[in-house]
């Protein structure tokens, strides 16, 4: 059982490494088409990574080991999240818990690494971005925890793979009020966590409105490549988690070849659909003023909290 889980984790990491830049390319392409542009193509993020890998890596004078290690930590945390979250298959690990608390802490390690990279160069914009990033992380993490906790109550386990398996067994639970409230809360949290509109604008050039871009503003060459890849992996893992919870069908329940193949294909489809929907929705919204962001995130926390309350009520009624 554990060997199968490990094999699945490797498959998930490999698939996400290939797919997450393409997901970003697809989202940019969707946006470009809706804006009447031709767009750079779905493969553009891969071209960016290849170019960055070949470029000279400049670091500002006075930066220390954090600038060198931070990007790698971000990528490592993204890869670990991809391995732990049930994306292709939901086979529970025996020795390593794919507990929601573990996944959230793994993502938080990456968040902190990114914030430290922003601080290390000592520029005003980097520090400002890090400060905003941590503010949002502090508001988002409880929402993610509480939202997934609401989903875990009926299952009786906080392991993400068990939650997904329980949802495959009982499709009615996907459309239950608990599940819907929790998923809306989770979706808002994912949008905030991955720096998409309306919380952060990934294509902004105005330093004063930046969050993610401000932190990476001093990184170049390979450092920048790792940072980009790391944040794309996080986006992929979180969107994939949302997809697995929203549409649990197709997720492999064992490590057999056929089941895994179906899992990979459905994962790619789910990511493509979610990515297109998110990108299309972004065309219609403007970035929120920074001081309004806590209101949005507080709203999503309330939804998650209501989901928890409702899950107790539903359990008692049933």
């Amino acid at each position, binding site marked *: 059982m554990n060997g199968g889980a490990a094999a699945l984790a490797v498959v998930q990491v490999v698939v996400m490494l290939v797919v997450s830049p393409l997901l970003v390319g697809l989202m940019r392409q969707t946006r470009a088409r809706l804006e009447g542009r031709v767009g750079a193509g779905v493969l*553009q993020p891969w071209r960016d990574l290849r170019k960055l890998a070949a470029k000279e890596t400049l670091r500002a004078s006075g930066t220390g080991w954090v600038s060198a290690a931070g990007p790698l930590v971000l990528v490592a945390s993204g890869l670990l999240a991809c391995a732990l979250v049930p994306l292709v298959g939901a086979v529970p690990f025996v020795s390593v818990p794919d507990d929601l608390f573990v996944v959230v802490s793994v993502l938080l390690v990456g968040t902190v690494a990114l914030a430290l990279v922003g601080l290390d160069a000592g520029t005003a914009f980097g520090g400002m971005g890090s400060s905003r990033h941590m503010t949002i992380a502090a508001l988002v993490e409880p929402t993610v925890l509480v939202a997934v906790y609401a989903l875990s109550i009926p299952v009786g386990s906080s392991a993400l793979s068990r939650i997904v398996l329980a949802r495959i067994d009982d499709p009615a639970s996907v459309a239950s009020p608990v599940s819907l409230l929790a998923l809306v809360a989770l979706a808002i949290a994912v949008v905030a966590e991955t720096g998409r509109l309306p919380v952060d604008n990934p294509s902004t050039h105005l330093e004063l409105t930046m969050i993610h871009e401000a932190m990476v503003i*001093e*990184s170049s060459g390979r450092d920048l490549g790792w940072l980009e890849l790391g944040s794309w992996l996080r986006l992929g893992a979180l969107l994939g988690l949302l997809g697995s919870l929203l549409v649990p069908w197709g997720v492999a329940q064992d490590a057999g070849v056929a089941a895994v193949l179906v899992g990979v294909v459905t994962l790619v489809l789910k990511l493509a659909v979610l990515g297109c929907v998110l990108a299309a929705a972004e065309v219609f919204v403007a970035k929120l003023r920074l001081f309004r962001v806590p209101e949005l995130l507080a709203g999503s926390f309330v939804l998650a909290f209501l989901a928890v309350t409702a899950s107790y009520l539903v359990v008692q009624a049933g």
Partner: protein
Amino acid sequence: MRGLVRLMRATGRVAEPAPQRPEGLQGANAAFGGSVGVRHVDAGSCNGCEIEVAATFGPVYDAERYGAKLVASARHADVVLITGVVTRNMLEPLRRTVDATPNPRVVLAVGDCARSCGVFAGGVGVAGAAHDAVDVDLAVPGCPPEPDVIVEALRRVTLR
């Protein structure tokens, strides 16, 4: 929102058909491989070139389809795009921006002012043209140059 959807439907694709790909810049590094970050530096321009540069990356000329993208930091850039004469105040910042751009890099002077000071030659605050301050790899003539010409220069670097 419904109005916006209707506008998108009615507009469709506004980008003009791509002209033929120009020859690659001699000495341009193949390391870019179809992905080029452009950092725009206004060294003392009248804003005429800025409007043309903005149009270059707008929906009609859409330089992004050739792999060129405006970036927010010189650290992310492969091309430094200079517009306007180099004024005394911008001489040092311009040099620093080019220094902060990781190699391999291409310096692009856009407009007559950046090429040869244009109408501002001999002005009181003018330190010179772009090539007086930094090594320029490619210059685009015009006052202001049309977006077509800027796109062509960028395509010589992106090779797409």
